[in-house]
């Protein structure tokens, strides 16, 4: 018989680490990440799916964490902005190319929307043919669901183009500022 609950215990792999939490079934994934798991990198903006600030990857796919219940990711794998950088095997971390290009291009001001943009863009760049030069239409499609009230988007779009160039496999013809990416992101 199916159980009908007001509270559930879940196990979720967050940024590669298995985590457990017992929480009310009405808890949004965005709140579970911040309050139950202490990962405050995911920002909560509009809480109704419009702004994109809370975007995380669920089993590799970008989703609005304010539009998913925490109980629905039981058994799934979640990546937040804290999980974008990778281990450099020397005790430190290497930023994701889009994190580097956000810094280079001044693609943020107040930074509130930045985690959602970074996760969304990282997934968008991962899903495309990395050897191909990115088009303006692709850039618009990738960032179109995220709101930024500071930058006017020009530098964010520039950062996307530069990150795409950095992620092109070595050997592909490119003229981007960040050359020689290994395409392994």
């Amino acid at each position, binding site marked *: 018989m199916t159980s*009908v609950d*007001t509270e559930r215990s879940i196990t979720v792999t967050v940024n590669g680490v298995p985590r457990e939490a017992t929480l009310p*079934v*009405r808890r949004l994934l965005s709140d579970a990440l911040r309050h139950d798991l202490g990962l405050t990198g995911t920002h909560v903006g509009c809480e*109704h799916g419009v702004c994109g600030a809370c975007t995380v990857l669920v089993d590799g796919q970008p989703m609005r964490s304010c*539009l*998913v219940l925490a*109980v*629905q990711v039981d058994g799934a794998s979640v990546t937040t902005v804290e999980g974008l950088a990778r281990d450099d095997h020397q005790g430190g971390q290497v930023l994701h190319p889009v994190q580097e290009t956000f810094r280079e291009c001044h693609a943020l001001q107040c930074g509130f929307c930045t985690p959602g943009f970074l996760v969304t863009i990282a997934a968008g760049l991962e899903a495309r043919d990395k050897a191909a030069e990115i088009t303006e239409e692709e850039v618009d499609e990738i960032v179109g669901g995220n709101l930024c009230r500071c930058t006017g988007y020009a530098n964010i779009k520039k950062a996307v183009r530069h990150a795409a160039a950095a992620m092109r496999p070595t050997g592909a013809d490119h003229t981007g500022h960040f050359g020689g990416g290994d395409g392994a992101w």
Partner: protein
Amino acid sequence: MKPAPFRYADPGSLDEALDVLVAEGAGAKVLAGGQSLIPLLSMRLAAPATLVDINRVPDLDTVEATGDGVRVGALVRHVGLLHDAAAARVQPLLARATANVAHPAIRNRGTTVGSIAHADPSGEMTAVLALTGGSVTVATPSGRSTVGWRDLFVGPLETSVHGPAIVVDAFFPALPPRSGTAFAEISRRKGDYAVCGAGVVVTLSENGTVSAVRASYLSVGLVPEVYDLTDAVNGQAADSADWAAAGELARTLVDPDGDLHASADYRRLLVGVLTERTLAEAAAEAVLRSAA
């Protein structure tokens, strides 16, 4: 901006899901992708006593494209339909419309059937179900029934599906021979709710003249409606038909409401513009498909 407390079940079969719906009674609500429902919960516009999450129910995530049409299961995400080449061949409106549904992050989670069951007159797939003459399959404890689009949509966010029932699939009939389609919308930001949108089907006669023109609109009226615009261009050559006249006819037929985003007059203007634009595109496609 948090959902009111509710009870939650995620049954592993359709029968169990219906059992829970029966046991929980009138306060129970089905949850699929949740991209429309969860905002309503957070804004406290809806406060169901129980959510019955059907994401673990097997066999609901398939798209079946046959010569008759495309059957879309209740757990098919918009992104799945968007990239289904077989479905696009049978009914091109499906990929055209889903490309306009929200943003990639929403399309990854939201379901096509869920958006139909949500019955938002601003929704793309409600209009497409109407325009294609589609239907849904409703499962209840006493069996399954087919509900045509006209009987399904009762009002904004309201369908005729009540009680312990789950919409398990939607069926979109195939595009008829010698026909072409187009879909376009105007929104403040790409992916946002359309201020106005249009889906159209143009069918040609065997001698290449226009024989049928139908259109359905988004954010115009309280429920999806299909408008026959054939009279404005009937018998005209497909490459030189007076599409502006069809747009003019459409403007006289629709009865949009004004709201914060656009006045009724502006919406009526957009209906004319989008109709003229999409019909020319659909006619060009109909010519190509007639030649093929």
